[in-house]
């Protein structure tokens, strides 16, 4: 699968930091998103996902560090970034007094790469009434309009900030279908943040977990799921664990039961665990993305 993505990274963050006074919202974030891949950014509320996205779109000035999108430095070439990136924010602020048709007419002239036919297609598919004013549109319709504006100019990169949060299941499905239909063709890059881990699992080639502004893990989705296991060990009477193996992201001892979530799990790791600790029995189970996510966060918070 490695040869699948075109060369170069679509998005590159180096030491990106945002500080407000003494609180650090994004802390030295570095990651790279290959072109043509779909990248899922997940994290608890307040982890800094939205702030990161705003910085890479040039909507917020970082305190330090840099962001490059399609090779352009966001701080100096933000116009080039905006011309080739479609952005769908969490809350839309489209001019409420404009009609849908006027919004489309307004935005159309701002992009060289606008595709009229695609726009018409999407207006039909999303069942948007050209004559309705934005202030009279339902939340789902506004979200679809926002998506239309982001993809009708055929961007190289699509950035979505919590795109389906608060949507009913039907609109969510229509929205995701719209994204997949128009943009996901292996050449375009998609970065999205979401609380819906099922969607992340379905759509993301790679996933990154943000916790309190810091990058906790960044991995290929399937690899993450395959290599992270939950080990439940029953300890011998009156004994406590002696040492946890490397790669433990979360652990808990409750009576005689020692539960650990281990990343990069292997037979060797299990062997060493059994050798170094007073263990009676051991079971290993696979985890879903939600469990892995929760364990990473719980593990982080236990340390701090």
């Amino acid at each position, binding site marked *: 699968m490695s040869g699948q993505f075109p060369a170069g990274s679509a998005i590159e963050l180096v030491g990106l930091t945002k500080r407000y006074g003494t609180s650090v919202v994004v802390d030295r974030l570095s990651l790279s998103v290959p072109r043509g891949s779909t990248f899922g950014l997940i994290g608890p509320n307040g982890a800094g996902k939205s702030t990161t996205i705003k910085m890479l779109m040039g909507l917020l000035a970082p305190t330090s560090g840099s962001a490059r999108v399609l090779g352009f430095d966001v701080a100096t070439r933000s116009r080039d970034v905006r011309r080739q990136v479609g952005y769908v924010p969490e809350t839309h602020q489209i001019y409420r007094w404009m009609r849908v048709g006027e919004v489309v007419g307004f935005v159309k002239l701002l992009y060289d790469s606008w595709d009229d036919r695609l726009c018409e297609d999407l207006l039909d598919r999303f069942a948007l009434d050209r004559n309705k004013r934005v202030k009279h549109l339902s939340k789902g319709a506004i979200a679809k309009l926002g998506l239309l504006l982001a993809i009708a100019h055929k961007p190289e990169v699509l950035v979505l900030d919590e795109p389906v949060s608060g949507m009913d299941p039907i609109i969510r499905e229509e929205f995701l*279908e719209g994204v*997949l239909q128009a943009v*996901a063709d292996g050449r375009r890059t998609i970065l999205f943040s979401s609380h819906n881990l099922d969607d992340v*699992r*379905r*759509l993301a080639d790679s996933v990154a977990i943000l916790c309190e502004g810091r990058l906790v893990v960044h991995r290929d989705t399937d690899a993450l*799921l395959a290599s992270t296991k939950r080990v439940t060990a029953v300890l011998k009477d009156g004994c406590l664990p002696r040492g946890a193996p490397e790669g433990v992201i979360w652990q808990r001892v409750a009576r005689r039961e020692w539960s650990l979530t281990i990343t990069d799990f292997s037979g060797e790791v299990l062997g060493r665990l059994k050798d170094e600790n007073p263990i009676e029995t051991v079971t290993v189970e696979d985890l879903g993305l939600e469990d892995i996510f929760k364990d990473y966060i719980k593990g982080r918070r236990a340390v701090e």
Partner: protein
Amino acid sequence: MRIDPKSHVPIYLQIVEGIRSEIGSGLRRPGESLPSLRALAVELLVNPNTVQRAYEELERQGLIISRRGVGMFVATTDEEVTRGSEEEAVLDTFRKGIASARAARISTRGITQLFEVALGQTRRRAGGRT
């Protein structure tokens, strides 16, 4: 075919299994075209790269075939080739048997009668199955 994002089975393998059972149950017939990457991705609501991976795996297993410029199709050629070679192997066995019978100066009618007997014996051994 439904994808379960909560399962720890990689999505591409879920798709492989899904298509395999569809072929097995006859829902997808040999020679039938498979949906395009994008179409299946939209239908299942998954990443098209994942669909591609699934298709590559199915092709590797010989269940589907890619026809340049046209798309992916459920394999028939593989089946026919196997069939053909199996039949060829049986024909070969018959030829050898006939050659031995001729060498033992058994007539054509004799050979046919012997064949019927053998067929009857294997039929009884297989429990009545033809």
